[in-house]
């Protein structure tokens, strides 16, 4: 698909139909949503919706204006260009072949992932990271017989003076 990936952060009033209005703004014009997540904020009356979409910049500008026009939308921010942290979560269920369990546990430890559930012969691994890291996780988990997964889509948090990947007291945070 043409265009570059764009992360939009949309602040809206927390109302039952607001998600439908946002989604409708995309679908009515034939635009696709690649991922979407919505949740409450510090202010319980407000919801932040994070959407990633892939279109050229001109389309994105139009979309931003169309979204901003909705009565229940407070602000629309394009978080693609720096100044924002972005994360996605993956829950992956693997069925390691007999004898491979320890190697899986080592991998999880090394990467800073978590095993959050174990079945008779399965492990559910939680991975949090940027999209590149999630893509890498698939490559690593594939050999352990990856049979099912779910991913959240990207959530983003923008803000002035935020430098992604920096801890306040210096030193990279490993992102």
């Amino acid at each position, binding site marked *: 698909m043409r265009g570059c990936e764009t992360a939009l952060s949309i602040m809206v009033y927390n109302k039952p*139909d607001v998600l*439908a*209005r946002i989604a*409708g703004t995309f679908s*009515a014009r034939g635009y696709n949503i690649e991922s979407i997540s919505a949740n409450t904020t510090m202010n319980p009356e407000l919801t932040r919706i994070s959407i990633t979409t892939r279109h050229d910049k001109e389309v994105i*500008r*139009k979309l931003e*204006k*169309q979204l*901003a*026009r*909705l*009565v*229940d939308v407070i602000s629309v921010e394009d978080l693609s260009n720096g100044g924002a942290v972005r994360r996605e979560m993956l829950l992956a269920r693997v069925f390691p072949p007999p004898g491979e369990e320890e190697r899986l546990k080592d991998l999880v430890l090394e990467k800073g992932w978590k095993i959050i559930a174990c079945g008779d012969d399965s492990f559910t691994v939680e991975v949090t990271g940027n999209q590149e890291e999630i893509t890498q996780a698939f490559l690593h988990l594939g050999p352990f017989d990856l049979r099912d997964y779910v991913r959240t889509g990207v959530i983003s948090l923008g803000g002035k003076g935020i430098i992604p990947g920096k801890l306040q007291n210096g030193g990279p945070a490993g992102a």
Partner: protein
Amino acid sequence: MKLSGSQIFFKALKLEQVETIFGYPGGAVMDLYDELSRHDIDHILVRHEQGAAHAADGYARATGRVGVCLVTSGPGATNAVTGIATAYLDSVPMVVFTGQVSTRTIGNDSFQEVDITGITRSCTKHNFLVRDIAKLACTIREAFQISRSGRPGPVLVDLPKDVIQSFLEEEDLDVPVLNPGETAPPEEREEAGRKALEMIGQACRPLILCGGGILRGKAAEEFRIFVKTLNIPVASTLMGIGAFPGSDPLWLGMAGMHGTYYANHAISRCDLLLAIGARLDDRVTSKVEAFAPRARVIHVDIDPVSLDKVIKADLAIESDSKAFLKLLNRLLAEKGLQLRPDTASWRREIEQWRREVPLSYCLNENIKPQYVVQKLGELAGGEAIVTTDVGQHQMWTAQFFRFERPDTFLTSGGLGTMGYGLPAAIGAQIACPGKLVINIAGDGSIQMNIQELATAVNYRLPVKIVILNNGYLGMVRQWQELYYGRRYSQSGIHPSPDFVKLAEAYGALGLRADKPGQVEATLLEGLKHPGPAVMDFLVEPLEGVYPIVKPGEPLTNMYLGKQE
């Protein structure tokens, strides 16, 4: 004291100074209709909910006030949807109240239940489902506020029956005072205004394209002053007709698919285009790449979504038309004569085009539809309000009826809704009881809401219906002739009913003319009749609307019709 939902509803309408509701009762709104008689609000009982929505729309367009309609749930609400979408596309302020089944049964496929907020989400400016009586009054206030603020539009409020039937202590009634929204901050606008005047001052061939935004913004007077100060020719969109006097030499008429030869050439040749309150849809631009190719474009619109949507403007200004034109007029008064373009030779160039190809038609032994429109314009004068339906008659009206005043041409431009004209005329007549209100219709369109003749008769509204009866869905037939190898698929609609007898059956006056010599007398008789009158003109069946620009072609590629 406890107030019922119905009582709160009418209290809230009073606060918004609503005088008239267009509506149709039904199961879900029985309580509201029961309460209605205790309040000083006129209710106009239409004969179909689509008629209610169009009538509220006509009322709103004629006055600038918010039109109000009230319909029941389910089919009542869905019938209104075409009227709502019509108002949405033409930015008409309107609030539609729909009944809804009780909150506890919503979602159960109850009798006459539809998800009307879901259905109208994409054709309203906003909509509400009121689930709590405590929110009823403030929701109604917000609905009116949203409807008339910024770029106006329809707002729907869905009212579940149990909410309307429940009670609230009067002291708990909360009606907030809402602030009107403001577009661009004044300083920013002032800067843009100076820049715009500078660009206009540098131009040799400036042209203005005026749109419906000037009418919605009540800015026609400011616009006239601005145009006359700078002597810039004015082309218009369909929706902008009436924003500038049609008798003024600077008026070039409508541009676009059926625009005048000189307006379309002016757009193609101008070196500066100032578009005000026009969203530049495909009927205006035709081939976008060839639209105003030599021009720097200044685009003023209240809705930022309209800016840089179709045409990338050199200067895009988010502003309400009235505020912006006031600003320009003030700046011009300050600056004196120094920055004004000399448009004399440019106007001569345009006059040459006007002389070469004026709007015209050929007379023969049949009644020419353009002749009826032109004659009607002469007889009715500049004060009449004219509504149309959609198709050839609509374009002939835009071309040949000379409009002098704002808010006198009410037509469905964006959605192109056949069946709009008669109910809109009813709404306009209710709003302006002393004015002459005329619906120019086609034989196809008039049958789409003919039932509203009963409403006109019921309320003794002297609306005049002029049917240009050619036995065809004329615009479809014309396209088939020009673009579909003369394969006239389903565009003939003869036989139509006998419109004279039909008018009489409804209790209106019916008149017919089938010879050119009868046109004037028929019009005079219909116009002087004190009640509703239907005038059926059997016109030249194969007449076309010219010029016509084939969709997707540059505006200068105009087909001017067979030269008879």
